[in-house]
């Protein structure tokens, strides 16, 4: 009885199948977007995507919010448009600005269909009531309005536009590296305001997150990964193994476990194609 009443609410089998496909696609995009790594607390029993990880930056300590659909502490009640505005413009549903520790300057390139799939997936999660601690910031950043000015200087919104002169793999790789995977957030050096230095894309950041030195992944033969073959890049993204047989530790190890090792082989190949072109 309850089951048939429930079924009557769905607009037919095809709709349900589409929804399931969208949720599945959203799950993949959330992995490829690296959402898990920051939005899951750093403890063994943490609920994935329920937030609470402390992100230490030169500008203070930020705590990642809860992305589960809990109404009080998470994204419960958000529309696709709300999520799209947050991801692509860095603005919350109440109109307040996010700090760019959240990589909206990269996610701004996300396609509409991808935003909708991510929204469908996040909505499918079990709501978890878990309040996020307040950020610990210096006085000059305590007002989110400061970010209005920061955005004027350092941020330009805009969807990814494929380059018609390049192949499908290159374009997919560019989308993954620049936007969804936001590799530049760690691998591109920043200016004194914390904005990315676009002329030095992926050239490494001596003062990366948690004080780590983040390597140059351009094709420079000495400072970058110019000596790596595309196959070696693919192997690294899948297994974390460097061409000399060492295994990456540090923050990239989480990125490999949570994100790049779970991509399709085609997507890893696309990333390698793009990186080899830089």
């Amino acid at each position, binding site marked *: 009885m309850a089951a048939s009443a429930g079924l009557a609410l769905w607009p037919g089998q095809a709709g349900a199948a589409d929804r399931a496909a969208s949720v599945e696609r959203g799950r993949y995009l959330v992995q490829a977007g690296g959402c898990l790594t920051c939005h899951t607390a750093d403890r063994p029993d943490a609920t994935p995507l329920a937030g609470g990880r402390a992100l230490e930056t030169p500008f203070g300590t930020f705590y990642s919010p809860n992305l589960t659909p809990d109404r009080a502490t998470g994204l419960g009640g958000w529309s696709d448009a709300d999520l799209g505005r947050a991801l692509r413009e860095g603005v919350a549903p109440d109109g307040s600005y996010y700090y760019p520790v959240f990589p909206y300057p990269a996610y701004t390139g996300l396609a509409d269909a991808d935003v909708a799939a991510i929204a469908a997936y996040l909505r499918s999660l079990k709501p978890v009531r878990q309040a996020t601690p307040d950020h610990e910031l210096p006085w000059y950043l305590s007002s989110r309005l400061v970010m209005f000015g920061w955005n004027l200087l350092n941020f330009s919104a805009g969807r990814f536009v494929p380059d018609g002169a390049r192949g499908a793999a290159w374009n997919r790789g560019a989308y993954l590296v620049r936007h969804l995977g936001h590799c530049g957030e760690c691998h591109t050096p920043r200016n004194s305001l914390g904005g990315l230095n676009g002329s030095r894309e992926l050239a490494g950041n001596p003062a990366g997150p948690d004080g780590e030195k983040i390597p140059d992944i351009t094709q420079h033969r000495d400072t970058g990964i110019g000596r790596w073959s595309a196959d070696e890049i693919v192997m690294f993204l899948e297994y974390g193994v460097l061409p000399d*047989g060492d295994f990456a530790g540090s923050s990239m190890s989480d990125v490999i476990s949570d994100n790049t090792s779970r991509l399709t082989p085609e997507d890893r190949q696309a990333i390698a194609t793009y990186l080899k072109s830089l």
Partner: protein
Amino acid sequence: MRRRILPALVACTALCIPALAWSATAPADAIKYRKAVMEAMSAHVGAFMLLNFGKVEHEGHLKAHTAALADLAAQAKVLFPAGTDTGDTDALPLIWKEQEQFNKLLTDLETSAGKLRLAVQSSDKPGTMAAFKQVGEACKGCHDRYRKADD
């Protein structure tokens, strides 16, 4: 009297010689040896990749590298004696504060490297890649928490 001295001597010799040999290893040498073994393991992995992905072909080498890797992995616990947390090393002191957790990762390494050797011996390609992934997890897990990041 004499009858008691002899067994005592034997026991002392048996117990003391290894103890003396142990204490005779300078921490700096233990660290150098640890680095040499780590580099050897990483070189075997590097060679494994070139062979496994068909970039080079040498009959029998795949078995040789994975067997050496498994042997070294199975004996890796002795590479971290007390007193080798300072000096010219990237090993973090946390290793000696979390011995149980650390040793568990080394056990994972031993198990996965053993599986890799077996999979290669039986020419089981999917098993080889699955075991290699587990070897990677063990290596990364340890390097992530217990090795100093590049500076």
